[in-house]
């Protein structure tokens, strides 16, 4: 019985996961029409100013937004973890984030910042100007879109870390005379440093592989996964797209391993409710 289950699992994973990965690797090492393995695709991509520029820009963009998202999530996480008014509602609102895909978040951001969105309407109503027109299609707009799905995710992760703090440690610090500020900097921050860093990395990884939002509204910045999509589906450049995909995967794996180093154990899987948008 056990053997049967193992066999089915192995077959599923092998066919559904192993085989595709192998094929992508193989494709990245092939040029159409030419026999034999070659690293030309990689050389192509790595030496291209356009692609590497986009990769670097994407990495930078994701890191910055992830950092901002993590910071933004801190008050939210604290609110949830300490059970302040409406904490349950807040937690639920942050959790349902996983039910919305990247495209939906794109739609949400357009509704927020687009020409007929909340911001534009508010501005027109309050100030009568239209300076924020088209903001959603800028890098800033995209960033806010990314923040939209990053901060709830980060908030949930950090809230869990806060909940795992020993309340008696905090009480001990208070009894020893620490003020709120000292408590925050000398006791809380050091204890939360690692989980917060791990959250940042998890969120950054999630953003790197994110796709839908960028597809919808990224105009001023080339997001790497979108480029891969274009190369593969649009231009049929299988080899190059495969090489780019491998590059992206390596980057994600590296970020993930760093995150695991920082916060090993339980939250490894909790962390990643839906990362591909």
């Amino acid at each position, binding site marked *: 019985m056990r053997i049967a289950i*193992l066999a089915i699992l192995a077959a599923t994973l092998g066919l559904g*996961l192993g085989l*595709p*990965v192998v094929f992508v690797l193989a494709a990245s090492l092939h040029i159409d029409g030419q026999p034999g393995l070659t690293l030309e695709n990689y050389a192509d991509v790595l030496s291209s100013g356009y692609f590497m520029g986009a990769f670097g820009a994407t990495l930078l963009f994701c890191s910055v937004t992830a950092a901002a998202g993590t910071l933004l999530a801190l008050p939210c996480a604290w609110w949830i973890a300490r059970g302040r008014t409406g904490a349950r509602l807040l937690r639920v609102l942050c959790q349902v984030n996983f039910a919305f895909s990247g*495209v939906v978040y794109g739609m*949400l951001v357009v509704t927020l910042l*687009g020409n007929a969105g909340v911001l534009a309407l508010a501005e027109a109503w309050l100030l009568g100007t239209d300076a924020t027109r088209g903001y959603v299609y800028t890098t800033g707009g995209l960033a806010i879109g990314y923040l939209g799905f990053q901060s709830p995710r980060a908030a949930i992760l950090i809230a869990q870390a806060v909940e795992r703090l020993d309340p008696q440690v905090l009480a001990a610090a208070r009894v020893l005379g620490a003020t709120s500020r000292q408590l925050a900097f000398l006791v809380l921050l050091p204890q939360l440093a690692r989980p917060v860093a791990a959250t940042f990395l998890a969120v950054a990884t999630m953003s790197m592989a994110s*796709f839908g939002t960028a597809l919808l509204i990224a105009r001023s910045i080339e997001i790497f*996964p979108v480029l891969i999509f274009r190369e593969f589906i649009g231009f049929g450049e299988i080899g190059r797209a495969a090489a780019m995909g491998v590059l992206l995967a390596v980057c994600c794996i590296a970020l993930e391993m760093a995150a695991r180093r920082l916060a090993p154990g339980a939250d490894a899987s909790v962390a990643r409710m839906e990362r591909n948008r």
Partner: protein
Amino acid sequence: MILHRARQVATDAVSRCLEAVLAWIPALLLVAPLLLLAIGAFSETWDSRGPRGATLASIEMAWRFAGRSAAFSLWIAALSAAMATLLAVPAAFLLVREASWVASLLRPALSLPVVLPNLLLAMGLMLAFPALQGGWLLLLAAYVIQCLPYALWPMVTALMLLDLQTLESAGRVLGADARQRFLWLVLPNIARPAAVSAVTVFILVLAESSSSFFLASGAYQPFGVALYNAFQDLDLRIAAATTMLLLGMLSPAVVLLELWLSTPRRAASTRAATPMRGAAARVS
């Protein structure tokens, strides 16, 4: 003295207000546009002066445009949920029970789909099974593999909390054979986590928008792709209406999941020698 106190009270109030605002921004980023989307979907016109009027026309158009996609997505989401759960349950048992090299090989393999970008999987599936391109099998494969870790996780957590070994020993000592132990002891305790797994996968697949783009075709278009097309080609109102359709499809599942996750499971652990202190196993 009084001035000092007043100033202190004022700064306290301000900082508390600030904290509240900051804390609720992530939620606001979701709720505010959602509200406007909901209003806009039912409006007659929607331009830079705001949505006006009330009509169901946009919803009707959205349904005509994306109805088939909706039906397909619902169907494939249900199928993926069923398959993923069927795989996850025995896999969870293996992971929790086996201490051997099998488990240590299985565990990283099963969490790989989470690390790997979905588009890599999609590309790989298309390259590995070119004959299946344009069909729905590849979509199903992609969804099941992508969501397997998320189906696995509620099961594994529940099984670990359950202390299977003691449960089994207790059952054996009371005279139950393997079939009786499975039916009466194990199954009742995994029903809820399995349901959570299934609904989680259902939601994830409905909401999916990365592999879907690679693997979609004319005949089989997941809803995420339809939504994107609505945005690109059609009026904002219709795109909003399409989004509302998606939310309508998602809501029952999301509400169900939240209900299940927040109601404490009846003493999920056999390890308690002293009465549990209120807090249920933190499943989220």
